[in-house]
C-alpha cells in the first residue's frame, strides 16, 4: 500500500515535472478599443482583456517578464502593468505622444520615440526619471537597438531617415536616408546589419551599422496587387538568422525572407492590414497583429505556414510575449 502510494506520488510529481512551470503569455495592444488582450502561449486562446490608457500602441515586457510596458500615445505616457495581476503599477515620464519604444539589452533604460515632438526620450526604469531627450527627424517611430546595446536606431517617418544614436553620449552619429516613411528598425542578432522598413517606399533597407551604408534593398512583388498596396512595416529576424519576416500592411501578407541572400521565399496571407510582429520565446511561432480584421495570426516559423487566427480587440497594433 505504502509502495503504491509512493509510486503514485512519484508518477504525479513526474507528470508535473514534464510540464513547463508557467506557460508564457502573449500581450496584444488594441489601438482603438484602448485595451490589451492576453493569450495563453500553450492554448493560443484569449484568457483575459484589461483596459489601459488611450491609444495603446508600442508594447514590451521588462523586469524579467514581470512588467508590461504600454505606450498610450493620447495620454502622453507609458504605463507599467503587472504581467500576472494586470494591475497598473505606475507610469513613466515618456514625453508627448509615445508610439514605439525599445528596451536596452541589459533591461534598462527604455528608448521612446515621441511622434509629435520629434524626440527620442531616454527613461530610467528603476527611478522612473528621464535621462535625456534626443532631437531627431520629423515623426520619429521605429526603434531598434544593437545587440551589444551601444547603438540605437530611430526612424523618422517624414524625414525618411534612420538616425544612429550612440547610447553613451546620446548623440546622433549618423543619418542614413532610406525610402519613404520608414517605420521599423531590426538588428540581426550578431549586430552585422540593421533592417529598416519603408512603408510608402515599399522596401526594406539593409544597412551596415559599421559603415552606415545601405548594402541592399529588399523589394516585394505580389502578383495581382498594385505596388502601393505593399507597405512594409514590422520586421523580425530569428536569433539564428535563418529566417526573416516582414509585415506588408494592406497586402495582408507577411513576407518570408532569407536573411543571407535577401531573397523573398514566400508570402503568407495573414489578416487585414498587418503591421507588427512578435516571436514566441522559443521562436517556433510568430504572431502578427492584423489591424482591420481585428485578429492576430499565428505563423509556424519552421513550416512557414499560418496555423491559426485569433480575434482580439479593435485595431490590434503591437504584440509581445513574456519569457518562458
Amino acid at each position, binding site marked *: 500500500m505504502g509502495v503504491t502510494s509512493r509510486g503514485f506520488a512519484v508518477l504525479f510529481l513526474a507528470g508535473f515535472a514534464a510540464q513547463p512551470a508557467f506557460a508564457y503569455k502573449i500581450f496584444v495592444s488594441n489601438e482603438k478599443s484602448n485595451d490589451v488582450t492576453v493569450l495563453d502561449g500553450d492554448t493560443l486562446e484569449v484568457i483575459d482583456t484589461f483596459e489601459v490608457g488611450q491609444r495603446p500602441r508600442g508594447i514590451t515586457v521588462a523586469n524579467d517578464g514581470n512588467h508590461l510596458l504600454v505606450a498610450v500615445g493620447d495620454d502622453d505616457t507609458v504605463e507599467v502593468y503587472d504581467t500576472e495581476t494586470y494591475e497598473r503599477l505606475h507610469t513613466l515620464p515618456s514625453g508627448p505622444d509615445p508610439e514605439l519604444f525599445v528596451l536596452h539589452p541589459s533591461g534598462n533604460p527604455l528608448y521612446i520615440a515621441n511622434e509629435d515632438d520629434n524626440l527620442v526620450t531616454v527613461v530610467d526604469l528603476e527611478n522612473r526619471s528621464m535621462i535625456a531627450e534626443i532631437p531627431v527627424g520629423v515623426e520619429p517611430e521605429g526603434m531598434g537597438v544593437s545587440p551589444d546595446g551601444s547603438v540605437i536606431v530611430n526612424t523618422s517617418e517624414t524625414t525618411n531617415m534612420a538616425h544612429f544614436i550612440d547610447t553613451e553620449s546620446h548623440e546622433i552619429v549618423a543619418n542614413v536616408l532610406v525610402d519613404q516613411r520608414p517605420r521599423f528598425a531590426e538588428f540581426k542578432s550578431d549586430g552585422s546589419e540593421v533592417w529598416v522598413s519603408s512603408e510608402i517606399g515599399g522596401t526594406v533597407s539593409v544597412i551596415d551599422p559599421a559603415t552606415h551604408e545601405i548594402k541592399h534593398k529588399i523589394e516585394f512583388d*505580389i*502578383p*495581382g*496587387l*498594385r505596388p502601393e*498596396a505593399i507597405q512594409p512595416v514590422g520586421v523580425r529576424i530569428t536569433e539564428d538568422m535563418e529566417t526573416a519576416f516582414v509585415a506588408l500592411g*494592406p*497586402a*495582408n501578407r507577411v513576407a518570408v525572407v532569407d536573411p543571407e541572400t535577401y531573397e523573398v521565399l514566400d508570402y503568407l*496571407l495573414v*489578416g*487585414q492590414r498587418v503591421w507588427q510582429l512578435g516571436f514566441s520565446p522559443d521562436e517556433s511561432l510568430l504572431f502578427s497583429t492584423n489591424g*482591420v*480584421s*481585428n485578429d492576430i495570426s499565428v505563423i509556424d516559423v519552421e513550416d512557414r505556414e499560418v496555423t491559426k*487566427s485569433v480575434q482580439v480587440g479593435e485595431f490590434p497594433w503591437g504584440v509581445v510575449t513574456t519569457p518562458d
Partner: protein
Amino acid sequence: MMPARFLLAAAFAVAAGGAAAQEAARLDPDWPCVQRKVPTLTPAAIWTGPAIEEAGDWRDDEEVRELVNLLSQRRVPQDEAEATIESFAEGLPAEERSARLTLLFAGLFDTMNAERSEIIEGIERYARHQKALVETIREQKETVEVSPVGTGSEAEQQLFWNLRIFEERRQSLPYICEVPRLVEQRLFALGRAIGTVVSE
C-alpha cells in the same frame, strides 16, 4: 433649442474639417471620411487560391448562387457563415471541391465588392449634399436676421432646421464611413474560411 448662431459656427468649422479630413479632401474633394478611399478591392489582397478569372461564371451554379446570396448578408453571423462554408465543402466530391469553392469565393467577391463600391458612391453623394447644404446655409445667413432667442421668422426657422439637419448628418458620418470597412472585413473572413477548406 440650440442657438442658431452656435450651430452655424459649428457647421462652418466642420466644413473646414480636421487635418486628416483635409488630407483626404486633397486627394478627392467629394470624399468626407478619414479612412482612405479605396474604390474597389483586389482579389489578390484576400485570396491565394486558384485564379477566380478561370473559375467560370458563378451565376450558372445554382447552389453557389444561393450560398453567395446568403453569405454576403451581414446579418448572417460570421460563425454561422463559416460553418455553412465548411458543410458545403464537406458535401463536395473531391474532384469538384477546389473548382466550386473557388466559384463560391468568386461570387462573394463580385457581390460584396459591388456592394462596397455602391456604399462608397453613396458616401460621396452624402458628402455632396452636405456641401450644398453648407452653401444654402451660408446664403440664408446673409439674408436672415437671427433673433437672440431663436423664435423669429419662417426664414429663421428654415435656417435653424437646415443647421440641425447638417449637424445630425455630420454626427452620423463616422459610422457611415465605417461601412465599407465592415464589408471588407466580412469578405476577407469569408475568403479566408474558403481558402482554408480549399487547401485541406
